């Protein structure tokens, strides 16, 4: 195994009773990268992460963290934010952060100091001495995130880190992820909100119906779908001539023609349009978003999948 692979899963399987929660999922996360595990709710993302971290044992397949097949032996090098957020309500924020750091071997006093500094940095200065029960859900989530990374882990695993955060805190979290990567950490996170994955991920895996359906970069995912083209010929152009020049699936909508083409067909199309004499009154060529690719991939195994998001921007984009 190459040295720069921090997380490696090979054909992981997890079965609960008659339900196959994860079926043969494989992935490899390179050191210093940001890797996203995407999938609809119930796809098996959390189970996959739990198996990788050694919280639960797989029923089949292998996993390696830092080349070690026993995740328990590298716990101190990992920071983990679980999907179900949990803090002791009676604890003060810095104490809670120090506690989580101490579990991974960080000195209590140093944990408190770093915790306070990170809280200030993330705009939580006014609640540094507050008890957890006094915080809003979003604030508590940020405190827990700080607790997960206060010991400066080499690998950060975040399960649905953006859910429950307002847009300001989502932006702060994205910045934090970039900063941690800049520090040298590897970040592995799960989400079903494509906008974050699109902005953050170097590589990603899409899991649906318990199986990995895609693995690659964001561009690779987008390339699975053709480019969307909207072409408006010069006024008075002969519709039959236009139709003859365009792909067979081109549809006229008012004065516009809409169709899809592969990415490598864009240049030939432009040559044809400029040389046809039909003119170009308007032309829009749009790359598909990650959301489109995600929905496309998921629908291949779940035809009735209608998409889901808790991100207004992504929802708008999808619409």
């Amino acid at each position, binding site marked *: 195994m190459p040295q720069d692979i921090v997380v490696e899963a090979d054909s992981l399987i997890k079965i*609960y009773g008659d339900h196959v929660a994860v079926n043969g999922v494989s992935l490899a996360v390179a050191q210093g990268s940001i890797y996203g595990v995407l999938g609809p709710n119930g796809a098996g993302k959390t189970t996959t992460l739990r198996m990788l*971290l*050694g*919280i*639960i*044992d797989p029923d089949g397949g292998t996993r390696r963290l830092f080349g070690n097949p026993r995740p*328990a032996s590298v*716990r*101190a090098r*990992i920071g*983990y934010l*679980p999907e*179900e*957020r*949990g*803090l*002791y*309500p*009676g*604890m003060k924020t810095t104490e809670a952060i120090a*506690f*989580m750091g*101490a*579990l*991974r*071997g960080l000195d209590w006093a140093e944990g408190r100091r770093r915790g306070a500094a990170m809280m200030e940095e993330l705009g939580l200065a006014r609640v540094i001495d507050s008890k957890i029960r006094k915080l809003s859900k979003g604030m508590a989530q940020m405190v*827990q995130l700080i*607790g997960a990374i206060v010991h400066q882990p080499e690998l950060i695993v975040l399960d649905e880190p953006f859910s429950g955060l307002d847009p300001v805190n989502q932006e702060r979290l994205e910045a934090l992820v970039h900063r941690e990567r800049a520090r040298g950490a590897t970040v592995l996170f799960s989400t079903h909100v494509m906008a974050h994955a699109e902005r953050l991920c170097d590589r990603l895996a899409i899991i649906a119906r318990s199986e990995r359906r895609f693995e690659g970069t964001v561009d690779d995912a987008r390339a699975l779908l053709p480019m969307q083209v909207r072409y408006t010929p010069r006024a008075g152009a002969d519709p039959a001539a236009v139709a003859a020049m365009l792909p067979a699936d081109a549809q006229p909508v008012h004065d516009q023609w809409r169709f899809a083409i592969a990415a490598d067909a864009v240049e030939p199309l432009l040559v044809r349009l400029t040389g046809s004499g039909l003119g170009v009154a308007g032309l829009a060529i749009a790359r598909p978003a990650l959301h489109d690719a995600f929905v496309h991939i998921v629908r291949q195994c779940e035809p009735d999948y209608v998409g889901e998001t808790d991100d207004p921007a992504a929802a708008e984009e999808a619409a």
Partner: protein
Amino acid sequence: MNAFLRTMFVIARRDFLSIVATPTFLLFLLAPLFMLAMGLVGGAGAAGLADANRATGRIVVLTAEDNVAILRDTDVQLRSATGRFAAPMLEVRSVAEAPDAAAIRAVFAESGSDTLAVMAGPLGNPAIWERERGALPGRYLALLAQQALTARDLGANAPRSIATFAQLGTSGPSNALRQTLGFGAVFVLFFLTLLLAGQTVSSLAEEKSNKVIEILAAAAPLEAVFIGKLIGFLGVALLFISFWVGLAAVAALVAAGTMAGPAAANANAAAALLAAAPATGWGFFIGIGFAYFVLAFLLLGAIFLGVGSQAATVREIQMLSLPITIFQVGMFGLASAASSTPGSPLARFAEAFPFSSPFAMAARAATDPDRTIHFAALGWQALWLTIVVWLAARLFRSGVLSGRNWSLWRRARR
């Protein structure tokens, strides 16, 4: 420091502080005061009731006028002889002729004091009716008739026996005192484990309801979390004990400084008696008692923690508390029975059975001078502690992570 130990102490520290640094801990610390107060109120009530019963009881003699004086005199003499084991108050009534059954029933039916026994007829051949067959009042009346007859017929010629009383010195400790001390040790250990070890049952409910358990499971071996929790609670228990022992010591010092005269003499006599009480000596007795408490706490605490980890809600914890309390009381009953029959097969069983062993062995330390057996017992209990912690930690692991199969069970099925 080893990662396992480090995590264990992080958990122990968190749990210890989360309990101790709260206002409710003060209430918990003072709980024995409430129990003592309730005990005193209950005890005073029960004692009052008992006294009232005793005061209202009486025995009645229906006899000829000639016998009245001699019966009263004899009663006074007998009461001085029987001391604190005296019969109920005597009522001597003069009757002209022997009463029939209806008259006797009428005496028993009289309101006011309960009539416990009635005697009638000639002193040489009295008839005695008893409320309770074979009880003291009826036997006392028979003795009274015998003594009164002797006094009446022989008078000053009756042979007399004059006894000389002397108090036995305290050269050797009393076996009864040692057994009482043994029972006391069982009771104190039971009380402390009932009060303290039972708390571990609900400790995991917090982690489950707060969803912290997954953070712990990802960051640390669950065995370390389990043992850390046990140690945290043991710390709370030791703080509790230290507080009360310290308070008792201060109270004893203050009392010793203010005592004078007969009270001080009595206290000194009691102290001298107690000093020789435990067969193994006070120092060893207290030391080994402490060790047995720690082992009893850890043994029972591990079981309760393991069982409690299976509960997901407060309701489930309440449901689990009943069998746990019954189990604790069962161990107390077994060890108590053992303490009252030292050396019996029952006592040996209680000493060997892992969950009653700490209690029964503490009782044995009060009655048996052999000290080496206690080291063997500690080793035996430590072995069981290891087994119980190992099993309970796995139960804990299976219980805290929902959906996770118990690995032992899974392996067994393969």
